[in-house]
């Protein structure tokens, strides 16, 4: 690796340095835009006691769900979980902790973490279980709770295209949490579908500038669909 070239040669190299007990921020919403091969690498590596910050925890057998199989996850920070049986079992057995965080607050916690803002105030969750024990402050007659930023030891991200400098472009709604996740890792690892030379991506169309990216790898993706909804000729009529 030299200069701004972020390319690494293998998935092992991509996740090198991940240790038991670390916090990992993962991009993706449902199964859309998830770093599926980086997740597989964490499974292969066998790292345990991990805290994952991710909107969801995948499904049985795919996405972050695969890390439940060998109980590698200690804690999830998510807005919506329980799309998988294993998650439910481990939660009820007390083997897994979950910190439910409103979706917008979760996105902002990552954004703030990456932007050097330690905390922010939001009306979201005031007067609800989410607000319990948090500082309340009134601005212009309305009450807000203080939410603290999140950073991770690692961030794992899925983008569509990258140049070798790590400038990223996401595809459609696979963008979701990925741009915030990319900013919030001490080490940000990105896997993509296509890598091009610097200069080939329009600088004005970059979603995530390469400054946030530490390691970059080319992958192939299954892109499993969670809810396959189709318009048929009959349903259009």
């Amino acid at each position, binding site marked *: 690796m030299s200069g701004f070239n972020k390319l690494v040669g293998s998935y092992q190299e991509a996740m090198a340095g991940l240790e038991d007990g670390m916090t990992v921020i993962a991009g993706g919403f449902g199964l859309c835009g998830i770093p599926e091969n980086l997740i597989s690498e964490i499974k292969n590596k066998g790292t345990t006691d991990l805290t994952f910050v991710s909107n969801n925890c995948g499904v049985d057998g795919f996405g972050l769900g695969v890390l439940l199989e060998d109980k590698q996850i200690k804690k999830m920070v*998510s807005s919506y*979980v329980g799309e998988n049986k294993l998650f439910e079992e481990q939660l009820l057995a007390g083997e897994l902790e979950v910190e439910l965080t409103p*979706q917008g607050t979760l*996105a902002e916690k990552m954004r703030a973490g990456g932007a050097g803002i330690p905390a922010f105030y939001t009306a979201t969750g005031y007067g609800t279980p989410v607000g319990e024990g948090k500082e309340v402050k009134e601005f212009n007659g309305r009450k807000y709770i203080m939410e603290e930023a999140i950073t991770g030891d690692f961030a794992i991200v899925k983008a569509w295209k990258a140049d070798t400098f790590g400038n990223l472009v996401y595809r*459609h*709604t696979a*963008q979701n949490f990925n741009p*915030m996740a990319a900013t919030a890792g001490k080490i940000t690892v990105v896997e993509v579908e296509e890598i091009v030379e610097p200069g080939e991506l329009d600088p004005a169309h970059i979603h995530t500038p390469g400054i946030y990216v530490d390691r970059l790898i080319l992958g192939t993706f299954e892109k499993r669909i969670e809810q396959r909804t189709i318009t048929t000729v009959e*349903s259009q009529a």
Partner: protein
Amino acid sequence: MALSREQLAQRVAQEMKDGYYVNLGIGIPTLVANYVPEGMEVMLQSENGLLGMGRFPTEDELDADMINAGKQTVTAINGASIFSSAESFAMIRGGHVDLTVLGAFEVDVRGNIASYMIPGKLIKGMGGAMDLVAGADNIIVTMTHASKNGESKLLPKCTLPLTGAGCIKKVVTDLAFMEIRNGAFWLIERAPGVSVQEIIDKTAGELVVPDVVPEMQF
């Protein structure tokens, strides 16, 4: 007759205005999209990061990278935009979405809403609901007026953990259209053929009933 799910969606759709940016929750709220009044343009916001959500794709259009907040595959209309989840919730929290429609388990006379958690049952999470109710000014809650056992969902005080405090001003149920003001439900309209008495009987929270309660028009 109590409204069907489709009629309920149809009544809610009457609250839309031309040029509205609208966020529709899962369930009955999703059906509202089918009843946008003729000649009116609204744009649907999906909180994962899509403004201008279109219909479901055909087999040819199917794309794993194109989903809505319910994780269903969708398309984007001409003039749509796609952005990060932080940007999406900036729109929501910042009050830029004109109308939010969502379901609930309970609503009370102070405008509190409970919609994400039943203690003792598995907790799945609030998704974007807490941000939506905290950020939107114009929220319509759609739900059945009472549970299957006949227990009112319109209460003096919510019994379940709250999704948001003091944020609901309009409720459309299968029996009635109500506004929440000054610590009470105000009966505005009733479903065709539903008596005011039935609504009174099924509303546990204080209900203000005017002399004349018009029927909903479809």
